[in-house]
Structures are given as structure tokens and as C-alpha cells.
């Protein structure tokens, strides 16, 4: 209770600026010496923590500082030495020794099955601290990770609060299997971490090369993201902490959709042009009919000019609360972490909420036995706005429903685009109607539990047995009301589906660590069992007499669709090992490997072995480097290994019979059919990866560089290999084909300015990747993996080209008046698009270069961050131009239809002559007009924070208080040819090759967030 009072007291105080007075001046004096030599150090900066007050030591290393009232801690820092914080505790003399800086050899990082000294890790591992993730306010841990690790491309492809992210590490190295990395949370494998509370994360380690990932064997090929969550208290006593974010988001950019006047002008010209496209008997030419008084006034002017982008979006309010309690006692520690988030999307009625509780308990049961456990319960609720490709979703209607319709008619009913006489528009519900009245509720409950026992068998030998369970229950409830055309019309549609997934794993392993003189040996040996059981059911119906029941009484509907259910499982049994040997703290060699057995593979190939080896040389520890003062740390490393990918569909190696129903004699009757051509030799996709890296720290840590070159070849590609369709099957799942990814990861940090009151550091994360398909199938057959929305597959897989190559025609212009004869040969007339006769590769959806540039500042008690993200070299296929520009008259579209359209006076254009689809048909094909440069620079995050000083904190009884303000997605610089919302996107979320193909995606918000972090004493 007292804490709460203090808290409210502090809130009031926050509103005031405050000044400190210096009544009685206390002083502290002392001497600063070097730890190793005992020599005095001159020029050491000493400041009172949380203030600007500071002095420096003199030639003899001596100092005296006058303390302000609130002084509690002194900070001693000097270039070339590790700085120290010392609590004053009422002392008046404080002597200090500083340690000359060498990167601590003992610093450890988390790796697969254990921790290792950073200097002994031979693989490429990037670390992101929880603090760095917290810089980015948000609902989703993956979004906070964006740009922070070179070589990890995280695409936030939707602005929806429930949108998922696509994570690709070091390029797409697969075609049919998943590109998702493996997530290991506290040692337990998880399929995704989208709904995980980002605030629970202590650190994230990204394992990128084979030396680091081979211990995860057949699941490591896409890289591994290790998430370590926060545990109980590390200091004696109780610690209470609160974090809160409050944000407002607005549509960041509007599409240039035509208004009512422009739209009617296109209609008018469309009518005027009709005789150009079709012969009409004299006097029979179509005439525009503006007589519908619901829409037009007596003069034929539209009564409404609805801006659907305005009507269907809102200022989205999001708040996020995190409360943690941590304590440490004699033999154990405890932590409780609570989270509640309520996030709104900028589309009306699009939202998600999350509540989670995590409990952590670590205890030492005996000298040789300790136990740790954590349990997380996460509950999510959401209303999902449908947005994936095709279909008349709100995200499409917002552009396409003509602006001449009102949101609601004067009598209170929702408008739709068919409610007009004299015109035919493509029937769509208006987006506001759709958003507000269509329910698509998704609830999820995740129970994630983890228990480990550590047995200390000897001083050098430890055994850990760990059991993890991830149980996920999902429920989706959907209802489309009876008045929503194309969706629920005319008699409503309801569905409910439930899914259940239970994953468990048991892993047991020995850890051996021993030093013999200059030799250090570290080893892991263990076994793993994993099993995943999934099942679900669904029901749906239409035929409701009214909208009363929604999805709550599906039995009341007259037409019941067959209910469905499924069940499947997979299992794995594995053995893994790693051995690391280091000599003289300079030379390290690591061998790791895993033997994996997976139920997914053919009976002839159940087990596979995935080995790797790596070496590292800590050059800066060599004697000859002693005198190279400029270099603090230099390490070279190289690795080679093989990993696998098992993430393919189940039962691909078996001949199975599928079942369903069909119609014969007016009734549903059972039907059965062969599912696939089986392949009992099916085995893992394998990735062979070479990595060479350098780690360099220079000028007393002013410059840090970590760079890796990698060369990855994925072979035995699990491919739906095209086979003659005369077999009755289009393809067989087979291990044929290879894809390479070669590139450079680079992380460069520069501490530009480093004074007591002002620090400025810059970090650049950069990745260059070149993707190439090396072989496919038996005869290098082209594969057309989709998406198949407009006229065939929009991408092609072809040897020599990168995956995700766009497939379409070249548009060289529009047929001119003087080319009528030539145009006629292809069935066209002047004013229609001039295209190549055959399809070709017209772009690619994956970038060459991606990166993040972070500038961090500390000015006194202020801190600031500028986070810029860059993507270069990808193209965008603006599939939506099919209906927003090429297809005219039938719906609304973008204003180029009107302003850039071909006319006999303006022939040098890419936009076809205005043509009313309903009267005159149309002419659209995927072509280069839809392609634009997809490079962009995003102002991802600008934030500024303020840390309250000790005195203020003392008054409020707090140990830390930080407030911050951040602006997310401040700007995006992109090609002017790009007509959509955001160049980082995909409407084809589930599709490996759908990246950068847009058919009206959920737009992104620009978000302003106020954050607060309070730590109670």
C-alpha cells in the first residue's frame, strides 16, 4: 500500500520541473591507481551518478569531489580502463583501483545446450540484450528484433496487430520447407514466438552458422534463435518493477485513391470511349445514367464523396503493462512476471489483447542438485481482419468501393457497391461495414512449462535433465451477417474451429568442463525426445433467418456444412554432442554434431547425422600483439558444417488415401482418393555452410567490428518435384535440387563520443546476400510455386535465378495511334498495353542488402535512439494495380487511371486508355508496369528517454524511473513508382515466395508511444 502511495506521489511530481539546492556540501577524496601495476592514473573522470557534477584526478591520481545532496554513487571512468561504480555509503575517503581493459575472457554467452565463453565460440552468434529489445515498444518480440542482427531479415508484412512476421536468416535456402528459424525458449523448442511477451526476454542469441546450429541438427538449417527469459532475483531481497507503454497510431500513408469527382470522370470517359472498343449501331451507344437520386443530385453530381481510408481507419490506442516481482533468498530465487496488453489496429475493430503470467523458481536442493522451473500461461484474444490475397477484404474495399457511396444510407442501412441503378460495379460490402460487422475472433491459450534438474556429478561434470511442454489451444469463431454481400449474404455464415497442439520434449545431457594447465576442455553429450500431437475440428453453417445468433448457435442454421476433424503427430529422437578444446586461451577447436531420427521421413532414411567443426584464433592474446595498442581484441574464426530442415508436411513418404464427400444423386456420398505419390527414400534437406569471421575491437573499444562471410548451399532440397502429370500426380516430394546463399554479415559499432555527459554511439548491422537456385528436379524443370492470383503463377523458380523471381510480361508502353496495324495482330488497339508475347522474369522479391543503423545518445540524464532500417535491391510486384489501375470502371482505383491514361494527345504513357470494363472489357496481365523498385529507408524508431536523478528517486522511494517518448515508423523513403502503403510487405503471408507481392495489404501505422519504467526499492 505504501508503495502505491509513493507511486501516486511520484506521478504528481512528474508534472513539475524541479531544481536541486545544495545546502550542506559534503566532500569525498581519494586516489585512483592501476590494478596490475599500482601506479596512479591521472585524468580519471569521477562523476556523481545521475548528475552532471564531476572532477578528474590529478597527476598523482588524486581527487576531491564536492557531493550534491542526492549523491549515492560515484562513477570512475577512464579511457583504456573498465569503469567502476562505487556506492559512497557515507565515506569521505574512497581509494579506487581500475582494471586495464581487455575484453573479459570469461564473458559467456548462451549457445545450444549450455553456455560458452564468448572467446571460445567458433560459430557465428549474435547477441541482443533484453534492454535493446525494450528500446522498441511493442506487442511482438520479433518486431523489436528487427534490424538488430545482421543477416536476420525480419519482415513485418502487415500493419495488423495480429499480423505475423517473416523471419529469414541468411537468405532463403529452401523451397518447399519452412524458412522459419528454430526458436528455443529456455531450452524448449517453439514453433513461433509471435505471441510471447517481449518484456520477458532477458537475451536473444541468434545462431547463424553451422558450427553454432549443428547441435540442433535437422532443425538448424534456417538458423536458431535462442531466447533466454528473465528469471528470479539476482540480488538479495525483493525487487518490484513496472513498465508501461501507451501509444497512439495513425495510418502512415494513404494510397492516392480517386475521389468522387475523379471517379465519375473516369466513368464518363469510359462511356465516351465505349464505341472505340465495340461497334454500336448508331444511336445505340451506351449513355451514362445519373438518374439514381440516392447517389446523384438533379444535376447528376454525386451526393457523397466518401474517403474510405478515412472512414475505415482510426487512431489506434494501445496500452501495455508489465509488472515483475523478483526476489532472492538463501537457496533459491523467485520471479513473477505479469503482462497485459491491449493493442488496437488502425482498421476499425481490429484488435488483440494478451494477458500472461510467468512464474520462475530456481532452487538449490542439495550441494549436488539444483532445480529450475518456469511456467508461462499466455492468453490472447483478437479480432482478425482478413487480408490475405484475393478476396473482397476490407483492405481491398477501402480502395475499390466507389467514393460515391455513403457509409450508411440515410435510413441507417449499410451501403454496398451494388446499390445503384444505371451502373454495374463489382459487388463488395463497404469496408466500414465489413470491419465493424464481420466477426473473426481468435482466442489462443498457451501453457508453456519447463523444469530442469542439474546434477553436479563431479566438479567438472554436470548432468541436466529437462522436460518442456508447450500446449496450445486455439479457437476461432467467425460470423458474417446476412446483409454483407459476397460474405454473409443472404443468410449469414458462421464457423467455429478448434485446434489443439501438444508438444513435449525431454532432453538429458552431460556437461564436462575441465582445465589442465594451458588446456581447457568443454563438452556436451546428450539425448533428446520430442513429440508433437495436433488435432482439431471445425464446423460451419449458413442459412440463418437473422443475425441474432451470430456464431453462438450454429445448429440454428438451415444448411450445415460437413463438420471436419483432423489429427496428426510427429516425433523425433536425437543424440547430440559438442566438444570444445582451447589451448592457451588462444586456439580453439569445436566439433559438434547431432544424430536425428524423424518420423516425417521415409522408412529408408529415418536417421541422419549433422556434423560441424569450427576453429578460432584469439590473435590479440598472442605475445606479438602486446604492443599493438590500437587493437584491444582480435579474433578470427572459421567453421564448416551440415544442418538439416525437417519442416515439411507430414506423411510425405507414405501412400495414403484421403477421404471426403461428394455429390451424387442429390446427396453427399463418401469419396476417397490417393493423396500422393509416396517416396519412401525421402530424407532431410541439408545445408552445407562455410563461415569465416573476424571480431575486432580497436582504440579502447571505440570501434567494434564483427564481420562474417558465409557460403551456404542447401542440397537434397525437399521439392515437390514436377513429374509428368500423366502419372496422375503433378509432383512427388523428393530430395532434388539446391539453392545457394552467399553473403556478408557485418556489425560495426563506433563509440563516436564518450564523455561523462555525452555519449554517442553508432551501430550498423548490414547484410549482403546473393541467392541463386543451383539445380531443380531431375532436368532443371521450371517450377511455378504461385501465388496464382492473376493469370497463373506470379513467381518462377528457375536455375540460375534467385528464388522469388517475378514472372510476367514486359510492358514496353501503350500501342500508339500509328501502331494500329501491329496492335491488331495481337488483338489490341491503340491505347492498350503493348506487351512482350511471352512471359519472362521481370523482377525479384528478395533484397540484396538489408540493414539497420542505430545511433544512440546519452546526454546527462537523457538518452535517445535513432533507428533507421534499409533494404536495397528487391523489387515489388504491385499486383493490386491489376484492379486499381488496369481494370477501370468496375471499381474505384488510383488516380493514375485518370491523370496518366493514354489519350491520342498523350501517347507516351504506361497507363492504358480509359476503358469501362463493364462496357468494353479490359486488358490486364501481370507485367512490368506492376513492378517497381522496392528499396527503402525507414525511420523505424526515434525515441528519447529521461532518467530521473537519485534525489528525486529517493523522495519517491524508487530506485529507477525512466520515461520515454518514441515515434515508430516515422517515415519511409521509397521509389516514387510505388503506389501502395508500405514497401515492406506481402499479401501472401504463408507463401515462401510471396514476399513483396501486394494485393491490398493491411497498412502500417505511424505510432507515438509514451513509456514509463519504474523500479521500486
Amino acid at each position: 500500500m505504501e508503495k502505491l502511495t509513493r507511486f501516486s506521489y511520484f506521478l504528481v511530481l512528474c508534472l513539475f520541473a524541479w531544481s536541486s539546492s545544495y545546502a550542506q556540501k559534503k566532500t569525498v577524496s581519494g586516489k585512483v591507481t592501476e590494478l596490475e601495476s599500482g601506479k596512479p592514473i591521472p585524468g580519471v573522470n569521477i562523476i556523481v551518478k545521475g548528475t552532471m557534477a564531476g572532477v578528474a584526478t590529478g597527476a598523482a591520481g588524486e581527487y576531491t569531489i564536492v557531493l550534491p545532496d542526492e549523491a549515492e554513487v560515484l562513477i570512475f571512468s577512464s579511457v583504456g580502463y573498465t569503469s567502476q561504480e562505487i556506492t559512497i555509503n557515507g565515506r569521505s575517503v574512497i581509494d579506487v583501483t581500475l582494471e586495464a581493459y581487455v575484453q573479459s575472457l570469461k564473458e559467456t554467452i548462451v549457445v545450444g545446450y549450455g553456455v560458452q565463453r564468448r572467446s571460445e565460440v567458433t560459430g557465428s552468434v549474435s547477441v541482443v540484450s533484453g534492454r535493446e529489445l525494450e528500446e522498441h515498444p511493442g506487442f511482438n518480440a520479433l518486431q523489436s528484433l528487427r534490424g538488430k542482427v545482421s543477416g536476420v531479415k525480419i519482415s513485418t508484412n502487415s500493419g495488423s496487430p495480429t499480423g505475423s512476421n517473416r523471419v529469414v536468416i541468411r537468405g532463403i535456402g529452401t523451397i518447399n520447407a519452412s524458412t522459419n528459424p528454430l526458436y528455443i525458449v529456455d531450452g524448449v523448442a517453439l514453433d513461433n514466438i509471435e505471441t510471447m511477451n517481449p518484456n520477458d526476454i532477458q537475451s536473444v542469441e541468434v545462431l547463424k552458422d553451422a558450427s553454432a546450429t549443428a547441435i540442433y541438427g535437422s532443425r538448424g538449417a534456417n538458423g536458431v534463435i535462442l531466447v533466454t527469459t528473465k528469471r528470479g532475483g539476482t540480488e538479495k531481497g525483493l525487487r518490484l518493477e513496472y513498465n508501461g507503454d501507451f501509444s497512439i497510431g495513425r495510418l502512415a500513408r494513404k494510397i492516392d485513391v480517386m475521389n468522387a469527382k475523379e471517379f465519375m470522370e473516369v466513368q464518363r470517359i469510359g462511356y465516351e470511349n465505349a464505341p472505340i472498343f465495340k461497334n454500336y449501331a448508331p444511336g445505340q451507344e451506351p449513355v451514362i445514367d445519373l438518374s439514381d437520386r440516392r447517389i446523384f443530385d438533379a444535376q447528376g453530381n454525386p451526393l457523397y464523396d466518401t474517403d474510405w481510408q478515412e472512414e475505415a481507419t482510426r487512431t489506434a490506442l494501445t496500452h501495455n503493462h508489465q509488472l515483475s516481482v523478483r526476489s532472492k533468498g538463501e537457496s533459491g530465487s523467485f520471479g513473477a512476471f505479469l503482462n497485459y496488453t491491449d493493442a488496437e489496429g488502425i482498421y476499425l475493430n481490429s484488435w488483440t489483447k494478451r494477458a500472461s503470467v510467468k512464474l520462475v523458481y530456481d532452487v538449490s536442493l542439495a550441494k549436488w542438485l539444483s532445480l529450475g522451473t518456469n511456467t508461462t500461461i499466455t492468453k490472447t484474444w483478437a479480432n482478425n481482419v482478413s487480408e490475405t490475397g484475393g478476396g473482397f477484404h476490407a483492405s481491398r474495399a477501402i480502395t475499390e468501393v466507389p467514393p460515391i457511396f455513403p457509409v450508411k444510407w440515410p435510413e441507417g442501412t449499410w451501403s454496398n457497391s451494388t446499390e445503384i441503378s444505371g451502373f454495374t460495379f463489382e459487388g463488395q460490402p463497404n469496408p466500414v461495414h465489413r470491419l465493424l460487422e464481420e466477426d473473426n475472433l481468435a482466442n489462443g491459450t498457451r501453457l508453456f512449462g519447463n523444469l530442469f534438474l542439474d546434477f553436479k556429478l563431479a566438479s567438472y561434470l554436470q548432468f541436466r535433465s529437462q522436460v518442456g511442454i508447450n500446449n496450445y489451444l486455439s479457437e476461432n469463431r467467425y460470423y458474417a451477417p446476412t446483409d454483407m454481400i459476397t460474405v454473409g449474404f443472404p443468410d449469414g455464415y458462421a464457423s467455429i474451429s478448434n485446434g489443439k497442439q501438444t508438444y513435449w520434449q525431454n532432453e538429458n545431457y552431460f556437461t564436462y568442463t575441465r582445465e589442465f594447465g594451458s588446456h581447457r576442455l568443454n563438452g556436451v553429450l546428450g539425448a533428446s525426445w520430442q513429440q508433437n500431437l495436433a488435432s482439431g475440428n471445425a464446423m460451419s453453417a449458413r442459412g440463418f433467418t437473422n443475425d441474432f445468433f451470430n456464431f453462438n448457435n450454429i445448429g440454428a442454421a438451415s444448411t450445415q456444412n460437413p463438420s471436419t476433424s483432423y489429427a496428426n503427430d510427429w516425433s523425433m529422437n536425437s543424440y547430440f554432442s559438442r566438444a570444445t578444446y582451447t589451448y592457451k586461451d588462444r586456439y580453439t577447436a569445436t566439433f559438434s554434431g547431432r544424430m536425428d531420427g524423424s518420423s516425417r521421413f521415409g522408412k529408408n532414411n529415418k536417421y541422419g547425422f549433422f556434423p560441424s567443426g569450427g576453429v578460432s584464433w584469439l590473435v590479440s592474446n598472442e605475445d606479438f600483439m602486446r604492443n599493438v595498442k590500437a587493437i584491444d581484441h582480435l579474433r578470427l574464426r572459421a567453421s564448416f558444417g551440415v544442418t538439416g530442415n525437417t519442416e515439411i508436411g507430414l506423411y510425405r513418404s507414405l501412400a495414403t488415401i484421403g477421404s471426403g464427400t461428394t455429390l451424387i444423386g442429390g446427396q453427399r456420398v463418401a469419396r476417397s482418393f490417393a493423396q500422393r505419390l509416396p517416396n519412401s527414400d525421402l530424407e532431410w534437406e541439408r545445408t552445407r555452410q562455410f563461415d569465416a569471421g573476424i571480431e575486432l575491437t580497436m582504440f579502447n573499444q571505440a570501434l567494434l567490428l564483427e564481420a562474417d562471410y558465409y557460403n551456404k548451399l542447401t542440397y537434397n532440397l525437399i521439392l515437390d518435384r514436377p513429374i509428368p502429370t500423366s502419372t496422375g500426380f503433378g509432383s512427388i516430394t523428393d530430395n532434388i535440387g539446391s539453392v545457394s546463399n552467399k553473403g556478408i554479415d557485418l556489425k560495426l559499432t563506433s563509440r563516436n563520443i564518450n564523455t561523462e555527459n555525452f555519449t554517442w554511439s553508432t551501430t550498423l548491422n548490414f547484410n549482403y546476400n546473393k541467392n541463386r537456385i543451383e539445380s531443380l528436379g531431375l532436368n532443371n524443370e521450371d517450377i511455378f510455386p504461385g501465388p496464382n492470383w492473376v493469370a497463373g503463377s506470379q513467381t518462377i523458380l528457375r536455375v540460375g535465378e534467385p528464388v522469388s523471381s517475378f514472372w510476367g510480361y514486359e510492358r514496353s508502353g501503350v500501342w500508339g495511334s500509328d501502331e494500329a496495324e501491329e496492335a491488331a495482330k495481337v488483338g489490341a488497339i491503340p491505347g492498350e498495353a503493348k506487351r512482350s508475347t511471352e512471359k519472362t522474369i521481370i523482377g525479384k522479391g528478395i533484397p540484396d542488402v538489408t540493414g539497420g543503423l542505430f545511433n544512440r545518445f546519452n546526454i546527462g540524464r537523457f538518452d535517445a535512439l535513432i533507428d533507421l532500417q534499409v533494404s536495397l535491391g528487391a523489387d515489388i510486384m504491385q499486383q493490386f494495380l491489376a484492379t486499381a489501375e488496369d481494370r477501370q470502371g468496375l471499381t474505384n482505383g488510383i488516380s493514375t487511371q485518370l491523370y496518366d491514361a493514354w489519350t491520342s494527345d498523350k501517347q507516351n504513357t504506361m497507363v492504358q486508355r480509359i476503358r469501362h470494363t463493364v462496357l468494353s472489357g479490359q486488358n490486364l496481365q501481370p507485367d512490368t508496369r506492376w513492378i517497381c523498385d522496392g528499396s527503402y529507408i525507414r525511420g523505424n524508431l526515434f525515441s528519447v528517454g529521461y532518467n530521473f536523478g537519485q534525489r528525486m528517486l529517493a523522495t519517491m522511494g524508487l530506485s529507477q524511473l525512466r520515461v520515454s517518448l518514441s515515434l515508430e515508423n516515422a517515415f519511409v523513403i521509397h521509389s516514387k513508382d510505388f503506389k501502395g502503403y508500405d514497401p515492406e510487405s506481402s499479401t501472401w503471408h504463408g507463401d515462401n515466395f510471396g514476399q513483396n507481392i501486394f494485393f491490398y495489404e493491411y497498412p502500417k501505422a505511424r505510432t507515438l508511444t509514451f513509456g514509463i519504467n519504474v523500479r521500486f526499492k
Partner: protein
Amino acid sequence: MKKYMFIITALLMVGCERFLIEEPKSEQSLDQFFQSAGEGRSFVNTLYKSGATGFYDPGGFTGSIAMMGGYISGLFDNEAKGERIEPLRAQNLSFNAQNMSEYLDRWWSSAYSAIATANTAIKYIPNIPGIPDAEKNQLLAEAKFFRAFNYFFLVKNFGGVPLVTEPYFNTEGIYVDRAQIVEVYNLIVEDLEWAVNQDNLSNNNFVTNNFRITKGAASALLADVYLQMSGYPLHAESNYAKAAAITKSIINSGSYQLIQNGALPEKSAYNVMRTSDKESEYVFSIEFDPVIYGVSSPSVSLPGSIRPPGLKYSRTYNAYRPTDQYIALYDETKDLRVQNQQLFFKSVDVRGEHFEFGEYAPYLFYDTVALYETARGGQDMRVYRYAEVLLIAAEAIAFTEGVTQEAVKYLADVRARAYWNTSRNEIESTLSGLTKDEFIKEVWKERYRELALDYRIWSDIQRTRLYPVGSAGGNINFVNVVGHTNPWGATYKEHHLLYPISDNEMQRNPKLEQNPGY
């Protein structure tokens, strides 16, 4: 305690073989299947809605695959051809192995998937333990019917295709050469003759037999096959006699009747076809149902510019617009079929409002319940009607026996129904006076007029290599298709009579050779 640790840890490291065995739960493995007659039947049931039977639904802007021949002939147009380019490519004959590859892939993969299903059924059904002979043979006959139906579609449109008669369980032997055209026909004939001659298919008509394959359906398909074999490219005219024999057996079975006109114009036979799925004229239909298995035909029955009040479809387009050249094949004064609101319509009244289209659209698919009430079509697509059986009979009899009374009667049956104000005697006497050649041409003309929306245009052009050129009064002049220029200005070359083999399929199967001319 501590010493037990090693034992426990050792136990935790031991593997177990069974752990990795994969046992599907919502699918059955093949060796568990084909244990009962019911399983055999459910396998055969799949065939009713797979392969070439799927080519009749006109959804998705391109129009149905069955109508592609109508587009190639240039006699039908599709309003949505700018949205999906295939009908346009067909009309202006600009299709080739590359630009139509993905579209043609769908034809092959659907047809061969059905063939594979039939092959599996044909292989395993005989071994089902305890299956009664009658049921076994009935199921086998159905499977063979559908295998033949799909091969017939392929051989007509692509020529000699790979002939696969056994199911595959691995990749052994998957690269199959193209067979000779005659070999494909031989299999088709063998399958259908077996289906017709064993005695377990029903003698009832299709509707009475609850929409399962009857002897009549198999016979009608066989008759069509014989007819096609009699013409190009095989030109095996001896098949005319077989066609005559089998159509006579259908006619003599007495199970089928032409729908007769009721009160004109609303209750004409053609309007009955539009509104009723249960008529004894239907020899084989592809069944649809608004709830269980919908069809999109209502959405292609109205031009997009026509939006009557209460229309429940968000978009309609006239995918089957007969061109003026097609309409010219009819005698507009005498022929009921070309009158407004029979097979086609060019205006309609809805809720007191009158809509003029300025063009013809397929009235046969104008399903008012779907269009104005439910937005879900359920009209069956007819594949063989008794009218066609009569026309095949008339042609085959005339060829083999001459212009007999019987041949005249069959053609007159079909024509008299349409020529509502012409006396049957007049029709018969005109026909009786014709030479064999003239009479056969009269049958062909009648086929174009009667089977306009049964998708026979291109098959007839393929087998006769003659193109119908209409002029005033429904006079039709047959000209050589090769060298003829269609209404879209494209001139046929011989190779256009077959489609190309898709480039993709050529890549997948190196043994394939392209059709000449592509």
C-alpha cells in the same frame, strides 16, 4: 542417492525404435484400403467430380475449359477475356506451348488425376474380399467410363497422349512416350465396350438411376467416340456402323425421351432444360447442387452491364456470348432455339424493369433462384442428351444405310421440336429428298444449332475439318477450316486443330514430342 544418478541418467539416454513410426490418423494408408465394397464405391465416387467432368463449370473468368473450343471457333465470345487472356488467345489463334502452358497444365493434371483414380480402382476393386460380382462389375464399369471420358477429352484435343493404364506407387516408369492416336482410341473403345456389354450397368435412364452411370450413358459416350473416330484424324469410317448400332440400342431401350414443348414460349423444351434437372432426355449430366456442390454458371449468364434489381451476384459477365456469326447459323424466323429467352436471350424483365442487352447471352444458365435469391447455382451441366443420341444415329445411319426413314425420323425429331411453326411432314419430306451427303450436312447443321451449349462445336470442326459459315435464313455453308478466317480475323492452320503440349509438361517428361506447328 548420488550413486543412483548414473543409473537414472543412463536410462534417460536410451532410444526406442517405435517412437519414430509414422501412423496417419486422418488419412488411411493404401494397404489398409480396398477392404470392402463400400471403400471401392467411395473411390469410384471421386470420379464423378474429377477430371474432364470438372471442365464444365464456367467459373473464374476464362469460361469453362469445355467452352475453349467455342472460343477457338471464334463463334463464342467471353466478356471477361481481358481479365483472363486464354479466350482471347483462342479467338485470335495466338496460343502456343508457352503462353498457354499453365492453363493447359490444368487440363492434363485434372484429366490424368482422374485417370489415375480410375486406374487404381480398376486394379484394386477386383481384389476386394467378398465383393459381389454384380457390384464389382458395376463399379469397374463406372471407373472405365470415366477413364474413357478423360482419355477421349485428351485425344480429341492433344492427339496421341501418354497411355497410362496402371496406377503408380513410385517413380518407376513415369516417363511415358506419346501413344498413337489409334492406341488411345482403342483403350477408350475397349473400356466402353466392356462397360456396355457386361450387364451390370442399369438400363434405366440417368435420373431414375439416381445420377449414377447407366448403360445408356456409357453407350452415348461410346457412340460419340465412334463418331469422332469416323472423322479426322483417324478417318476410320467403319466406326459409323458401330455408332449406328449403339445409338439404335439406346433409342430402342425406351428409357429416353425428348422433352416436348409445353405452352410457348415459357414452357418450351429449352426452358424446361433451363429449369429442370430431372428429365428423361438427359443421358449423362454433371450434377450440381446449390448447397452440396455449387456451380458458377448463373454468374456467366448476364452481361456485366446488366444489373437487374435484387441481383445477388456481386459480378456477372457474359462468358458465352454467341457471335453474330453463330446466330446466323439459325433461321431466325423459324427456329425456336434462337428466339429470345430460349437457348439465348437478349433482353429480360425483372421486377417490372426491362433490360436490353444489345447482345445474346446464354439463357440456358439463367437461374433466377440463384441470381435473385440465393447467389448459389445448382443447375446440372448436361454432357449427353437424347437429342444428341438421335443426331448421332441419324448421321451414322445415313452414312451406312443411306437416307432411310429411320435416319430422317431421328433428325426430324430434333428439328421439329425447334421449328415450332413448321409441320413435321414438311420437315420430313424435305429431308427425305436429300442425298446422303446433303443429309449428313443437315445433321451437322442441326448439331450446331441444337448442341450450342453442349460444347460440340470444336469437336465437330475437328472431325469434319469443315467450318460452318452461316448466312441469312440459317443457311450454312461448310468451308475448309484450314485457310478459313474466323470472325476475329485469325486464319486457321492445320496445327490449330490440336492444342500444343504445354512447355512445362515437355520439361517434365523428356519423352514427349510437341504437336507439329507449335
